[in-house]
């Protein structure tokens, strides 16, 4: 980790959530901006060009996906971590396919959130147990007929996903599978890429459920 604090923007329509997150991680990162709706978020992200954006899935004025669509290409060095209370697959899969590099629920603890932000800033992916469960669900069954490697998980990736779904941290996954943490991160990033690019029916269905194809 570099000695400079990570620059973070908080996007959430609930001021209470923003102040809660600020209280939890504000001492360890530099929170350079906050926004409560899509338009403000886009403006703040363009102006501050932060390292990481903590992005709520549901926002007034177009949802988190609208922010991603407007910013991902323009500020490629900024990474997005989706933060949501929603458990619905179409919400999760929607933002991840929109370009978010991770998905955590708001129930996450302060240290875990900080850890996730740092991981995201390093270019890795952050999967909650539930997101790992979604991935396994989406990539299970019906994969045999597809030749596209994007539509399948390798056995190793599947193992990593299962352990994450079981509540293991990356460190614990690495220990269990006798791998380096870096390798685990590589596998998770590969899964993220598949999740974003695969044409698997389940994924497009979830994504289209919120008209987000």
């Amino acid at each position, binding site marked *: 980790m570099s000695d400079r604090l990570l620059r973070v923007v908080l996007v959430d329509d609930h001021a209470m959530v923003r102040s809660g997150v600020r209280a939890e991680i504000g001492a360890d990162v530099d929170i350079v901006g906050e926004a409560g709706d899509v338009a403000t978020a886009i403006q703040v992200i363009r102006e501050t060009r932060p390292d990481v954006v903590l992005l709520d899935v549901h926002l007034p004025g177009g949802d988190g996906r609208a922010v991603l669509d407007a910013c991902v290409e323009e500020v490629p060095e900024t990474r997005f971590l989706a933060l949501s209370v929603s458990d619905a697959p179409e919400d999760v899969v929607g933002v991840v396919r929109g370009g978010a590099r991770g998905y955590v629920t708001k129930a996450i603890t302060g240290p875990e959130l900080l850890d996730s932000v740092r991981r995201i800033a390093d270019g890795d992916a952050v999967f909650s*147990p539930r997101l790992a*469960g979604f991935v396994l669900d989406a990539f299970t069954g019906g994969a045999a007929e597809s030749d596209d490697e994007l539509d399948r998980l390798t056995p190793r990736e599947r193992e990593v996903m299962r352990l994450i779904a079981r509540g293991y941290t990356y460190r614990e996954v690495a220990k269990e599978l006798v791998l380096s943490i870096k390798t685990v991160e590589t596998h998770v990033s590969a899964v993220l890429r598949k999740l974003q690019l695969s044409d698997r029916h389940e994924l497009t269905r979830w994504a289209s459920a919120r008209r987000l194809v």
Partner: protein
Amino acid sequence: MRSGALDGDDRVVTVTTAPPRATRPVSGRVVAGVCRGLSENLHLPVWVVRTVFVILALTGGIGLVLYAAFWAVLPLSPGLVADGDLAAEDDFEGARSADFTRLLALAAVAVGVVLLLAALGVNIISGSVVPIILAIVGAALVWQQADDDQRSTWSATAARAARQTAGTTANAGRWRIVVGIALVALGVIGLLVSRTGPAAAVQALATALLLLLGVGLVAFPWTYRRWREQNEQRHALIRSEERAEIAAHVHDSVLQTLTLIQRNAADPKEVQRLARTEERALRSWLYAPTGDPDRTFAAALQRDATQVEAAYSATMEVVTVGDATLDAPLGALLAATREVMVNAARHGGGAASVYAEVHDDSAEVFVRDRGQGFDPAAVPDDRHGLRESVIGRMERNGGSAEVVSTVGAGTEIRLRVNRTAAS
């Protein structure tokens, strides 16, 4: 918006102040409720009004014209309709058949009067009367259908009743309209033919059709817009219904819980339990459960986890992949998982990750807590929880249970059953 929309499930309580103007009730009516409506408004017995109308109808048809005029002008009485549940529907049907007999009686009286007048030498049945009657009956049918459509739009506001009414009457309604229009057309044609002879009638009809076409062309954009506006209004109504439902739910459960939380502010454990329980309830309500907890594994596991959370103020993060109908092996797995979750809640620090994977040939559950951990070998024999109800149960059902625990780093229990054996 309806008033009282939040008060109950289907029953809509509409507060109606006594209407100063006459309306047409839908029950206790013979044709369109004009006479009953007027009689209620004028405080006269309904048969008096009906007799007056029948007499007026038989003397030059002025009664029919008046009736039609009142039909068009008097609105349907919404008070009775808005009850729109099945009981009211039954009453309505009952009233309809009772009315039918009354209608027959009235018709018999009318025929008698006509015959009497004919015998007295007053010629009422001339060539043009039959087509006129046909046209009137046809128009009455169409108008009545329009009334019923209006009723069903009202009951559409009464949530489920809507689909019911629409479903059952749509077909009958369409036939009624077709028959009605046919009767009107027949009546008009008959009138033309009887008055002018066939050749002139054809010409007149052609002219009329052209005229209709022209009017239609002029009126089309306006009618279309009206129709669209009406549709939009209906959709807006449905949306506001949904909002009302959500508001009702929030009111019933969320606000209650928030109040409880404020009252228990001094007890963090209780506050956490309340918040967690409410969160679960709200989630399962919002993201509608994918299955019946009595039938499918995933839903049953979720239900059990929620119960354990509530009973032990614990947090169970449940993730399931795949699902299947509950059978004997899955039932055993579920029971063992429940026991493991209880253990994790009591001894494992109050929080656990529960991961279940259901395949066609096997099913696995992993329950991981971050408690103190323990040495499985050191558990005394009289502690039956794990040994008997988990490991024993799994083995009796052709499965296995494995305990991986590190002192200081938590415990993971791995359960597995074969599914092919039983099926």
